[in-house]
């Protein structure tokens, strides 16, 4: 999944990767592409995890994990960092999801459970500000329920914000008329994909989908 999404990140992009599976993308970007990673706590030019000698508790990413800074990196304060996000300067943001709807609504911060401690972080800023929002997620939840739905039942992170969805079963484009299937994973039939998806899907033969 991460590999498939990484293939769609063009050379020269400024990318913000959400915590979790999206973080894997940095390690599988095709060779020869120069991609600069933005970490919303205040770093543009985030590098890989540190060696034992490089470990520095004051050089962390948005998930508070220790990272490194590449040559050409810059540090800045939080309001500047979110100006980059909210001002539309980030090319692509890849986020995880609890639910995504066919019109691009995203729910990834709360299940609405009144007993849970609410926490939102920068997700609402990212979905409202980055030029392209990619969602990278398992197609179904651990309980086997589809995360791709006609409408999200969980509280929204943003309305109509998602452009592409990468799951273990398929790649989708969110378009004004609904969810277009761009690609199906090997061994997955259209029937199975539809069965595991909570909304109707649009297939476009022009895109050369092979089943």
């Amino acid at each position: 999944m991460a590999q498939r999404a990484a293939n769609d990140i063009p050379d020269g992009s400024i990318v913000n990767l959400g915590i979790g599976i999206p973080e894997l993308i940095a390690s599988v970007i095709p060779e020869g592409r120069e991609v600069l990673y933005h970490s919303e706590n205040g770093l543009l030019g985030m590098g890989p995890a540190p060696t034992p000698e490089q470990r520095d508790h004051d050089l962390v990413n948005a998930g508070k994990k220790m990272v490194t800074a590449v040559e050409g990196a810059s540090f800045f304060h939080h309001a500047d960092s979110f100006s980059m996000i909210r001002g539309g300067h980030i090319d692509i943001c890849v986020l995880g999801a609890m639910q995504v709807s066919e019109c691009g609504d995203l729910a990834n911060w709360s299940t609405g459970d009144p007993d849970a401690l609410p926490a939102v972080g920068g997700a609402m800023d990212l979905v409202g500000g980055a030029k392209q929002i990619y969602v990278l997620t398992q197609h179904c939840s651990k309980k086997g329920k589809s995360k791709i739905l006609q409408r999200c039942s969980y509280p929204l992170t943003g309305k109509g914000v998602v452009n592409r969805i990468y799951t273990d079963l398929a790649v989708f484009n969110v378009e004004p008329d609904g969810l277009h299937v761009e690609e199906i994973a090997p061994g997955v039939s259209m029937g199975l994909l539809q069965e595991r998806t909570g909304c109707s899907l649009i297939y476009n033969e022009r895109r050369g989908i092979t089943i």
Partner: protein
Amino acid sequence: MINKEVDTIETALNDIRDGAVIMVGGFGQAGSPVELIHGLIDQGAKHLTVVNNNAGSGHVGLAALIEAGQVDKLICSFPRMAGSDAFGNLYRDGDIELELVPQGTLAERIRAGGAGVSAFYTPTAAGTLLAEGKETRIFSGRECVLELGLKADIALIKAQYADRYGNLTYYKTARNFNPVMATAASTTIVQVSKIVPLGSIDPECVVTPGIYVDRVINVSTPVHEALLVEQGCVYP
């Protein structure tokens, strides 16, 4: 003569009153002014409203201030962090109030507060639970939410170097909220690893100009919150 250097943490914090709104710098453990927070625990001011991105971790720093029962309300974006039990327990018991704000809106509200901007419109959070009850308006076809600038009585800041004018530089991602919060408080109190002679910070490299800073304390070997948490330390 302008000299913002203060000799002891006790002196720097002694006029903080009950009910004060206090911005605390840091993002998680990076850039957290641990010595100043511990000084505030010793000082004992109560019924505080604290502004921070998180809710502290372990039993030191902000988590310890919350555990000490000194905080009535927290304004933050992400109180659910590994080891944030201090806040979670009080919150579930209804003993602490939470104002949850998207992280960028939080940073921008503080920036606005410091810049004399009373309020601003942003598309962040439009159409979500966090916009409920807030004024909205359409700009360029997009729904935007009215958010208020945020000011504080006190900001507790961690920086790397300062001079006696209060000019500050920071270290790596420990910068985070610190420079923004420094602008938005009536009294900005800063702990630094070193106070250097006037003129030794290149004016091109000053991140926080001294105009925003009121008091500077030299904490020459600050303990990192991450290490205190790793070692299971408890304050006091």
